């Protein structure tokens, strides 16, 4: 209920602002909705949304898997931390635009280049978060697992993974938003489809309703992923916690 109210408020503010600013600068909600419907009818909306979503999924999965593995290693093995740290700082501070442009120059305007560039942008933040998680692992439980000679897999699943899950959830949440911001830049610069490409077209034509139609559709999808996937996952993982804030 509060979420719905919040949404209604958003539309109301938009509408009022649109009336003041005029249609040329900010179209009203119905105008944008009409464009959305027209784009959906022609199939373009789903085609471009699908392309972007596929890139987000691939790059996100790649970055999370690699980032979690590297972060865990760096949190547990001192030498790995020493070796990896300078690379991590470099990657963290490398602007997304630089990575994308270099990837397109070196690997051509290909799908592989785009996804690799997006994944590289997300990778260091996942590493940093998971490294913190691995450093915070409870030594007392580790000893317990050793004393009872838990097999490797059981130890990972029951002792290590539950301790890392809040960190994985945090990395996933911040990662999803980061990836979706960067994917548009990659599409704008070097892909013939996707939401980023459409926004590029809309920018060249100064077609604000089209621009809003695409970006809001994608925002809605991200909101859906968050409410239907990330939040239930988190709730399930933390059901053992005595009710906290």
């Amino acid at each position: 209920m509060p979420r719905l109210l919040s949404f209604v408020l958003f539309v109301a503010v938009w509408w009022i602002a649109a009336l003041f600013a005029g249609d040329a600068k900010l179209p009203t909600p119905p105008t944008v909705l009409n464009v959305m419907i027209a784009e959906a009818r022609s199939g373009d909306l789903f085609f471009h949304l699908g392309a972007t979503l596929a890139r987000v999924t691939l790059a996100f999965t790649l970055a999370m898997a690699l980032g979690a593995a590297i972060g865990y290693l760096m949190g547990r093995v001192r030498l790995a931390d020493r070796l990896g740290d300078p690379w991590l700082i470099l990657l963290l501070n490398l602007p997304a635009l630089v990575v994308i442009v270099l990837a397109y120059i070196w690997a051509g305007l290909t799908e592989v280049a785009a996804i690799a560039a997006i994944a590289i942008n997300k990778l260091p933040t996942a590493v940093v978060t998971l490294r913190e998680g691995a450093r915070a692992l409870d030594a007392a439980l580790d000893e317990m697992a050793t004393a009872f000679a838990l097999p490797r897999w059981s130890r990972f699943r029951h002792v290590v993974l539950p301790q890392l899950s809040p960190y994985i959830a945090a990395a996933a949440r911040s990662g999803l938003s980061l990836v979706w911001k960067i994917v548009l830049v990659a599409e704008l610069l070097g892909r013939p489809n996707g939401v980023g490409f459409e926004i590029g077209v809309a920018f060249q034509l100064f077609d604000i309703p089209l621009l809003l139609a695409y970006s809001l559709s994608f925002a809605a999808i991200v909101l859906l992923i968050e409410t239907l996937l990330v939040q239930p996952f988190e709730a399930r993982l933390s059901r053992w916690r005595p009710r906290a804030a």
Partner: protein
Amino acid sequence: MRLEVDIANKTFKSAAGEQHDVVAGVTFALGAGEAAVLVGPSGCGKSTMLRIIAGLDPDFRGRVSRPADARIGFVFQEPRLLPWRSVEENVRIAAPLVDEAKLSALFEILELKAHRNHFPGELSLGLARRVALARAFAVEPELLILDEPLASLDAALAGRLRDEIAMLMTGRSMITLLVTHDVDDAVRLGDRVILLSPRPARILADLPIRTPRSARGDAETAAIKSEIMRRINGGPAEQDAS
């Protein structure tokens, strides 16, 4: 199975960089079925010795010999349960081979029947200790290590839990190593009482108790207790009783 312990020396480095001797020479051997109780003042290095014996701390001078694949049941001073797994899962994860009959027998004796599906965060300390005990017994250990399993419980509860531990110990032929600073627990649960000095720990006396645990009457228990108290207060290193 036989356990031979010979810890010549164990030192700790404090955060300030100073070396502290924790164990200064402890030697004993235990055979199957024997229950030894290590009794000593708080902070004398008992827990450290248990960790060395269980193979959790390889950094010491000396030798501990036991079969490499011996099943160990360890009851830590803090229960060390997995907070994200239920009581039953906690036991089953440590003892994947335990069958339902054995599990319910354990839960019955330890009064955990109503708590199978609870999470450790929902349990009192006494109950969490019981889960840790159930876990240690469920693996059918060849070496059972109990680190002050009755500490910080009120007297009545500690007494009840002590009886439950005694009940679980009978009929199993494992080596038991119990650490406590309570002479009462030592006499009721052990076949052999090893008295330790204050830090760095040395063996002050190694007292066998001839009568089997189940046959000890109140008078006999009291006699053994006063013998131990006498040794503690009038041991080789003569000290003012404080």
